[in-house]
């Protein structure tokens, strides 16, 4: 087994990187894959909280890099799902505590053991971003349908292209189909005006994300959440499956489908 390293990043903060990382990790594990999620946001760790594993941290990524513990000791097993692990970030250090070479080495050690290694990148384009992207085989950029977030996504695409990582994929998060319909939100096509990027998912704005994050249970674990289903669809696309729900050629029908779900309640 040689795992694929997927880095989730965005440029702008607060668009849902951590939520996306937690849910994609969970969804991939639900599909019987062996998954490890790494929080690369050193000093501002949050993936542990979103995944509901914050009470079980003993060692963290910086401890591994500093040789204080073995990699296995920093891996927290998620007891709810077979094959899902978290490597938390350090909370007391900063981005400079880890180098891109460290991240490549850590991922190199994890690859034989896992199908997927997901890295939750910090916001920004500095050291933390560089650390998160260095070992990536694939980069997922999360944006929301807002000018500021899409602009930052465009910047990130430029930086990823310069790294020769292959074309990144885009998740449009927190879309509100009702607002798009009445012309008060950027539509999927408007966001895709930014240069060459593959759309891998559209996640509707969904209260259940907030509720599940309050509880520390990623929404992908729940069956009746539309956002959870959207993340599951993304995970299936990551596994190479074609998921008709995200038909790129027919964004209108996609919107209508979301809209139908929406009004179904």
């Amino acid at each position, binding site marked *: 087994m040689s795992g694929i390293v997927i880095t989730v990043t965005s440029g702008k903060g607060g668009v849902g990187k951590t939520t996306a990382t937690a849910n994609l990790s969970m969804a991939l594990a639900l599909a019987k894959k062996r998954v490890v999620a790494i929080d690369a946001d050193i000093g501002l760790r949050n993936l542990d909280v979103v995944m509901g594993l914050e009470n079980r941290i003993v060692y963290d990524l910086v401890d591994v890099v500093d040789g204080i513990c073995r990699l296995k000791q920093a891996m927290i097993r998620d007891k709810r799902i077979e094959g899902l692990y978290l490597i938390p970030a350090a909370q007391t250090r900063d981005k400079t505590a880890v180098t891109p070479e460290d991240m490549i080495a850590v991922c190199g050690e994890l690859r034989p053991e896992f199908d997927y290694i997901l890295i939750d990148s910090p916001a920004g384009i500095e050291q933390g971003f560089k650390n998160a992207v260095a070992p990536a085989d694939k980069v997922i950029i999360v944006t929301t349908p807002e000018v500021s977030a899409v602009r930052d996504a465009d910047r990130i695409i*430029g930086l990823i292209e310069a790294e020769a990582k292959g074309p990144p994929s885009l998740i449009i998060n927190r879309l509100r189909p009702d607002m798009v319909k*009445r012309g008060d939100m950027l*539509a999927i096509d*408007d966001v895709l*005006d930014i240069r060459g990027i593959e759309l891998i998912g559209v996640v509707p704005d969904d209260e259940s994300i907030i509720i599940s994050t309050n509880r520390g249970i990623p929404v992908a674990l729940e069956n009746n959440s539309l956002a959870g289903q959207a993340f599951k669809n993304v995970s299936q696309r990551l596994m190479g499956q074609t998921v008709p729900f995200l038909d790129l050629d027919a964004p209108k029908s996609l919107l209508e489908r979301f809209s139908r779900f929406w009004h179904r309640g």
Partner: protein
Amino acid sequence: MNLFDKLFGSASNKSGKVAKERLQFVLVQDRIKLPPATLAQMRDEIITVISKYVDIDHDGIDISVTNVARQSRLVANIPILRSKHSV
């Protein structure tokens, strides 16, 4: 799609459309690193120079900045009505 018209033309007051125009505006700025006033000036000067030699259809002018394979490209589509100087 006439980007410059979108940037400088009149906009509907729907906020989604305004957002789209503002997005395209900042992306052009970010990519070619020219401030908006300079872009508008460049467009006017291009039109002035071409107008010296040919009559052009001002309504049909389409000047946009696109990105192809990491290279910014200025594409001008200017309909000519007639030449001013017959040979």
